[in-house]
């Protein structure tokens, strides 16, 4: 039987694929990302955080402000080593998991746009967190809620 984590769906399908099908490899990479959105008062917020981990279609980070499930935020990689990084387009992510934790809210987010968010081939930089993939596979197989997202 084929390893489902290696099955690549087309980008258009990945953007809206059912979350139980999202068995991507995660990488423990810390990108500086600027997160933008509109708060409940109608004001724009921008804050910069480091990702805890990323996959091609998702990421996890700690938000200093409350984000809720199904909030949509724009993420833009900000890398001081890359002069043109600020010119990167913002990519929309849907919050699929938000839990309060020390220092803010632990966020798992899923990419909505088909554009590449990270600008690098993740598996060429570091090894995937294989344990996390196996864990999620077992969790999904056991009928757990499919809304765990990334992180």
């Amino acid at each position, binding site marked *: 039987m084929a390893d489902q984590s290696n099955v690549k769906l087309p980008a258009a399908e990945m953007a809206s694929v059912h979350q139980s099908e999202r068995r991507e490899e995660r990488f423990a990479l810390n990108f500086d990302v600027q997160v933008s959105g509109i*708060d409940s008062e109608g004001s724009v917020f921008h804050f910069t955080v480091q990702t805890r981990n990323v996959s091609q279609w998702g990421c996890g980070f700690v938000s200093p*402000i409350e984000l809720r499930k199904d909030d949509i935020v724009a993420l833009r990689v900000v890398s001081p080593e890359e002069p043109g990084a600020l010119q990167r387009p913002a990519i929309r992510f849907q919050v699929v998991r938000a839990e309060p934790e020390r220092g803010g809210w632990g966020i798992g987010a899923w990419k909505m746009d088909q554009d590449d968010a990270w600008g690098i081939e993740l598996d060429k930089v570091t090894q995937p967190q294989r344990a996390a993939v196996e864990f999620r596979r077992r969790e999904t197989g056991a009928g757990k809620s499919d809304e765990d997202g990334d992180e």
Partner: protein
Amino acid sequence: MSVAEPASRPMQGFRRSEKPGGAAGVEILGFPQILFTRTFGDPDMLFVPLLDAAREAHDTIERLCERGEKRENAVMLSGMQLASSLLRDSSFSLVARGLAHDNSYTVDLEGGTLLVQTRLFAVVSRRTSFFKVEIVGKIGGGGMFVVRNPVQNSVIMQVEEDKLRLPNFFSGTLAQECLRAQMEQERFGRIEESVGAQANQEIRMIVPVAGNKVPVILRQKDEGGSWDIVDGRRQEWVGTLAREMETPLQAVLAAVKDLFEHK
């Protein structure tokens, strides 16, 4: 503080009606996916709260631009806020583009327009007529919404936003208006079928009367005879053209005849 829920929470208006209201796809132009609802897509349920939510998003764009945000960025952020507010309602979910929906809503925040594509029906004498219609208007408010027949590319009516807010306007008033427009169309069709059957010469025209477009036929049954004036809606004789008016009419006919003989 949490994000993306507008202070006035316009989408809570969904639940104002108890009846289930069909499926719909809501496209926010520039947004990568479609927001889909299985149960609240009927225009009688979704149009007003969606218009209000889109208006709030539209106002947000202007406010953000005034505060120095780039317009392109403000449009994107505002679209995200609108999508988030829709997703607050559990009946909405995200779907891929490219699927056909019973009711389709397109929110153009940059252009400031809302387009609704839907299908209405009216039942008269146990006969049901379906009408595919498009309703389009400015999100900004104050203007008229235009109701079009996309098949015939004709305008059915223009309607004030206040009327669109009346309960059951789409399934009631608008459906009946579509039926009336179709009946007029059918009368025109019957006129078409009668061409040449009983006339020596015939001129058809549309005359605007008190805001309505009335089909009128000028018909000369016999050569050299008088011209009847016929109401095209009911095929009723309503009068005879005055003799002094026949001369310019004959001039028009002669010019057209000449054109066709020499083309």
